[in-house]
């Protein structure tokens, strides 16, 4: 990959940034340079302070110490007004946030125009904006329907809108916080192709990712944060994946390997299940899960995985078809009955569906078992018992928190996932539904998730793994089925599949054509 010239001018400098949240130091004296035409990858565990650092750069947060310097129009570096996104935008910094910052009730065009025009203007100048965007889209390859309502876009499309927003404002520095966390492999590839094109045209780009492979493939330089401090800053050419993983977590990381499985009897069966009405529906889905196997479901997001997971979680009742676990019919079950039947569910959106942020870690660990005798007697809660159990789980699952009584909202994504794992896997469920279980998690947390899922499989549970990450699917699954536009293909042994085939099927090429 072509490197930017060594003497390319520095566009941006973070100068000794320190940021504290109460007792916690999220950024600890971080120095970082970004040159014109350079793609810099920022790595680090969950909670290492990556997002915080970028938020300071963009003015969402004010640093406790240190400053941000930008060169305006290629000139001298000058200090950027802290705490002002407005100033950052003016200085040519564009940011694509970890959580999208789009107004869903507006069109794509209006989202892009937002904030670019004088608020006192009597009319939004949409026509010239359209022309400029048409030009931008052809040059960058970021195409998206300008008149679509954002609420109707897929995640990948939303991502493009976010980048277009920055480009439309003539950004010279582009920051992307985990841009590929929710993208399919193909979408990720497209994105990086675009980023390279933009870098070649002179932009400085910083992106955050947990996926080492793509970091290696797409960046010129890699900076690693650990515990808020920068622990490495190297040209990509001098790095390898193992070394990076160690830098991030501070110790050696072992590869997760799937041993040979011993699939047993059929456990969990979906027959002709249809649910939902919109484009996020599923149609006539058949699925058989055996004990002691991991069945992977691959698919581009928005093809019905969410609905499938909701049906299996007992949140949505199918309009047709049936669902059975062993001899037990579960077609009309709700979440409660699913849990009681021995079905563990790991939700794809762990912040929304996984935890009650305002409640304590211990309460979140007990929430699925709150009506069980272990948590209550005559309707009265048994606090001591709940606490003891929470302490045991915190130890067993290595949940990093300030004690079982701290609010769950303060935990990092990886630790929130551990809470969910702990409470769902605790009762040795027969079936585990894991939807996007490693999304947004760092290397350490991810390997922990993998280990737990493999343990469940070894114990004889059937695991249904819904994921968009092909590496993950290939590594964990015994068989893989592909979901496209609400239809689920027949599962095939992983050994008979390869990335290319799966990618094509996910993109909608028919099974026959692929064979």
């Amino acid at each position, binding site marked *: 990959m072509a490197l930017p010239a060594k003497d390319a001018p520095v566009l941006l400098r973070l100068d000794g940034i320190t940021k504290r949240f109460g007792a916690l130091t999220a950024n600890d004296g971080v120095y970082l340079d970004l040159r014109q035409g350079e793609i810099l990858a920022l790595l680090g565990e969950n909670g290492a302070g990556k997002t915080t650092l970028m938020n300071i750069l963009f003015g969402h947060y004010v640093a*406790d110490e240190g400053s941000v310097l930008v060169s305006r129009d290629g000139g001298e570096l000058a200090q950027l007004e802290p705490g002002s996104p407005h100033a950052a935008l003016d200085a040519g910094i564009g940011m694509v946030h970890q959580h999208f910052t789009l107004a869903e009730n507006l069109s794509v065009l209006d989202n892009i125009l937002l904030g670019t025009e004088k608020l006192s203007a009597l009319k939004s100048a949409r026509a010239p904006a359209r022309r400029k965007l048409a030009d931008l889209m052809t040059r960058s390859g970021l195409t998206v329907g300008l008149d679509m309502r954002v609420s109707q876009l897929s995640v990948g499309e939303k991502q493009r809108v976010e980048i277009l927003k920055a480009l439309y404002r003539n950004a010279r520095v582009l920051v992307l916080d985990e841009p590929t966390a929710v993208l399919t492999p193909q979408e990720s590839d497209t994105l990086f192709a675009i980023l390279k094109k933009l870098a070649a045209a002179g932009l400085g780009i910083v992106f955050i990712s947990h996926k080492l492979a793509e970091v290696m493939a797409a960046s010129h330089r890699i900076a690693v944060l650990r515990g808020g401090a920068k622990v490495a800053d190297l040209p990509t050419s001098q790095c390898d994946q193992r070394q990076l993983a160690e830098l991030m977590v501070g110790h050696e990381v072992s590869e997760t390997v799937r041993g040979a499985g011993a699939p047993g009897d059929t456990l969990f069966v979906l027959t002709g299940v249809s649910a939902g009405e919109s484009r996020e529906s599923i149609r006539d889905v058949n699925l058989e899960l055996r004990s002691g196997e991991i069945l992977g479901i691959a698919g581009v997001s928005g093809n019905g995985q969410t609905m499938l997971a909701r049906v299996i979680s007992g949140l949505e009742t199918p309009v047709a078809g049936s669902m059975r676990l062993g001899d037990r019919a579960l077609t009309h079950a709700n979440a409660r009955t699913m849990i009681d039947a021995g079905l563990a569910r790991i939700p794809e959106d762990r912040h*929304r569906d996984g935890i009650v942020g305002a409640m304590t870690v211990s309460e979140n660990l007990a929430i699925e078992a709150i009506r069980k005798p272990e948590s209550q007697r005559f309707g009265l809660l048994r606090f001591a018992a709940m606490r003891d159990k929470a302490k045991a789980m915190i130890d067993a699952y290595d949940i990093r928190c300030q004690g079982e009584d701290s609010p769950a909202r303060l935990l990092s994504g990886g630790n929130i996932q551990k809470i969910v794992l702990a409470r769902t896997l605790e009762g040795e469920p027969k079936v585990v539904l894991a939807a996007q279980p490693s999304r947004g998690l760092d290397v350490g947390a991810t390997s922990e998730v993998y280990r737990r899922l493999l343990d469940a499989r070894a114990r004889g549970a059937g695991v249904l793994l819904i994921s968009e990450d092909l590496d993950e699917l290939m590594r964990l699954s015994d068989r893989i089925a592909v979901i496209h536009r609400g239809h689920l293909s027949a599962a095939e042994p992983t050994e008979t599949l390869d990335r290319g085939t799966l990618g094509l099927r996910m993109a909608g090429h028919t099974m026959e054509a692929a064979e």
Partner: protein
Amino acid sequence: MIRFEPRGPVAVSRMIGVSVTAALAALILAAIPMLFAGLSVFDAYGLMIKGAWGSMFAFTEMLTRAAPLILTGLAAAVAFRAKLWNIGAEGQLYAGALAAVAVGTGLISGPSFVLVPAVILAGALAGGLVMLVPTLLKTRLGVDEVVTTLLLNFVILLFVQMMLEGPMQDPMGMGWPQSEPILDEAALPKLMDRMRIHWGLVIALAASLGVYFLLKRTVWGFEIRAVGENAAAARHAGIPVTATFVRVGLLSGALAGLAGVGEVAGLKGYLTADLSPGFGYSGIVVAMLAGLSPIGVVFAALFIASIFVGADSMSRATGVSNYLADLIVAISLLCVLVSGLFLRFRIRLATSSPAQETAK
């Protein structure tokens, strides 16, 4: 630019400090209209304190006014805990009062120990059922409950008027739209001779302990809190969201209904369409002042009642328009609201220079 940082647990000294500051701010702001009306501020405050706490009569009057506020405050607090926005305590209060009157004026007869519980139960049930309508509309059809509960207030008040001019009108009432008086056996007993203070206060205090216990110690309370903080996650974890909303709705309505029972069976003896000077709406204020804490509700209600009764009495003693009382209540409310913020957040004035930032 102001910034807020959430605080951890608050020290008692700080709590007291903030409360005192809020009270002082309220006193200073309330002095403005007093001066405008030509009052001597110190005398006025003296009279206010005397009017609410200065004699057994004043004190019991204050408690009498606090009793319905505690109940409507609890009604709001418990509903808001589950993020069920019940703005309809006023209507539920009237429904409770109407039911109490229906049962307590001769529908059934018997000794006190039968009639009093019957009246209480009827009122609670009526209030609960009224709240069930918006709750079911919300859970089944997704209709916004802020609006439905608000609108039902008007419907119920009109219904009460209709009943008071129709089937439930007192035949001995000379045509006035009022109900028959509640039988003596059905009335809540007085707590003291010659004073108006009645068992409604005891019911209110018991209710606040009950709700505290429910929320803190029981599975239902756990479910209410979980649904209120994150309904989606609660649902995913197998908590019956709909059933929880229905329970909360019934409970909230029942508490407001009890307020109506107290006013009609403990205080007035019969029902008129102007039974409540907005207790239902004030309940929301009480609940929020209390930070939705059931025990806090008691103190918030005492506070609001003291301010009102004291200021009302002061306006009478000084001959100033008694609208001043409502005004002082409103000012105190706003001050206390703002002060609550200083307890929950650390407030920093962020300036553009990082150097200054660190200097702090």
